[in-house]
């Protein structure tokens, strides 16, 4: 809010009319909301994996890319074999992206992660290596060039709520998908038996086993869920951008920043951090270059984390 008021005052000082200021504020605000949706979609999965399991998954971006390529593949299949299905393939692609990325995540936990739970730095190295393997695999299978999914007609175009303000429909869809997915993740974590297993295992792994929870399977399912969410993020990402083998890696630093800034393990913190960082970045990008905007945001996050190391939201429990 402060950032938006600053933007308005600055624009007024630069000689823009009130109508122009309103238009710019809405457009920049919406661009910030789009960025917020991408950050949050990426960070949700990471919040589950890093926040709940304390696993530093450097390959998280590649699980997003996997979901995006799944969408591209389905769009290509529809285009070449069943053009009639192109209108409604996208919801199916979202589910498929979840299951493909989730299934690979399940296997990754079984093959690599479970051996490294007590060695977080080794997990970082192992998943970084895995991210490179995935990137090379994408390059070999889909090619090095950027590609994109064919969007159904209902996802294209824009609408004008006011004179001079264009809101893209794909952006609205991205935001809606983000809100729905966040709701589903929160509901799963806090209102289901699966969520209870996850929370108990996070709090005390040995004790969770000693009350009858299969912690090995809980870990595997949690990791798969986080990867599946990244897959859905990738699918949603195809509505606003093209995809390349290294696309996921571009967002990994921002995503970790969101999760740590929000307070590891706090979904509410993750939402607040994603919103704050995205809006600040969007506003700053209007005045500065994209790189400088990132530098300023990163600097601000570092300063805030020095003052408040636990992040924005921390649980208040007697130790």
């Amino acid at each position: 809010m402060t950032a938006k008021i600053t933007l308005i005052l600055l624009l007024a000082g630069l000689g823009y009319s009130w109508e122009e200021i309103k238009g710019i504020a809405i457009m920049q605000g919406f661009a910030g909301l789009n960025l917020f949706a991408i950050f949050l979609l990426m960070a949700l999965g990471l919040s589950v994996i890093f926040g709940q399991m304390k696993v530093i998954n450097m390959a998280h971006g590649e699980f997003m890319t996997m979901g995006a390529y799944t969408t591209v593949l389905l769009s290509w299949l529809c285009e070449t074999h069943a053009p009639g299905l192109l209108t409604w393939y996208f919801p199916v692609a979202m589910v498929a992206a979840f299951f493909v990325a989730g299934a690979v995540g399940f296997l990754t936990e079984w093959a690599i992660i479970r051996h490294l739970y007590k060695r977080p730095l080794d997990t970082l190295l192992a998943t970084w290596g895995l991210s490179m393997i995935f990137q090379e695999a994408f390059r070999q299978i889909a090619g090095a060039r950027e590609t994109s999914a064919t969007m159904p007609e209902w996802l294209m175009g824009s609408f004008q709520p006011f004179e001079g303000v264009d809101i893209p429909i794909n952006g609205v869809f991205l935001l809606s998908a983000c809100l729905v997915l966040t709701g589903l993740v929160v509901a799963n974590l806090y209102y289901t038996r699966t969520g209870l297993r996850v929370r108990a295992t996070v709090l005390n792994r040995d004790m969770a086993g000693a009350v009858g929870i299969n912690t090995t399977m809980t870990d595997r399912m949690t990791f798969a869920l986080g990867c599946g969410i990244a897959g859905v993020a990738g699918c949603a990402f195809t509505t606003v951008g093209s995809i390349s083998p290294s696309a996921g890696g571009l967002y990994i630093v921002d995503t970790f920043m969101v999760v740590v800034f929000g307070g590891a393990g706090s979904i509410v913190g993750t939402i607040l951090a994603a919103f704050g960082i995205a809006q600040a970045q969007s506003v700053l990008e209007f005045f500065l270059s994209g790189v400088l905007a990132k530098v300023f945001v990163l600097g601000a996050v570092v300063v805030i984390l020095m003052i408040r190391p636990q992040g924005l939201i921390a649980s208040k429990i007697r130790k």
Partner: protein
Amino acid sequence: MLSVKNLCVSYGESVVIRDLSFEVKKNETVAIMGRNGMGKTTLMKSLIGVHKTRGGSIMLDGKELAGTESYRRVKAGLGFVPQGRQIFSALSVEDNIRTGLETAKVKKIEEWVYTTFPILKEFRHRKGGNLSGGQQQQLAIARALVSGPKVLLLDEPTEGIQPSIIKDIARTLNDLKQMRDLTIVVSEQVLSFTLAIADRILVIEAGAIVREDARASVDEATISKYLSV
């Protein structure tokens, strides 16, 4: 009912439990007593599977449990109340109890839980970590009981609990033993509490059982010598 034979447990190369054997009959309460560092907690953790055993056998109703994961032991009929309670601090009281329902047939908290521990009903929406020590102990016992165990393992349940509450815990355990048809194995250092609940007392020294007494024949002075520092 519970048969432990030639159990060996080690931390790295140091052997903490060596060739330890004992048997517990159905509906019996057996107390394992000893000073700090004699292997009580290691033994309890090994029985529930939190600590891996190096050798030996743990049989429950003829089923071998050694080498299996903790959750399988709970499924087989063991319940565990750990030293220091180890409540899931960030979960509500109700959710803490619900974690114990994982292997239960009915996944619902039955009324007897709140009848036995009324304070848990009153504080059911409060975070487990925000309860007092005595309340947490009740929660830990309730959490272990809802899985419907045949054998309840309690590791130093009186540790950090004020004397008036200790008497309540002893009374509750005796009542529960009758009501829930329980067999109990408890590790303890407080002799008065042990005498209030145990049918038999085993003394552990340096990871081995060195003495066994039925409650009727317990010589308090002799047992106290094994407990004093």
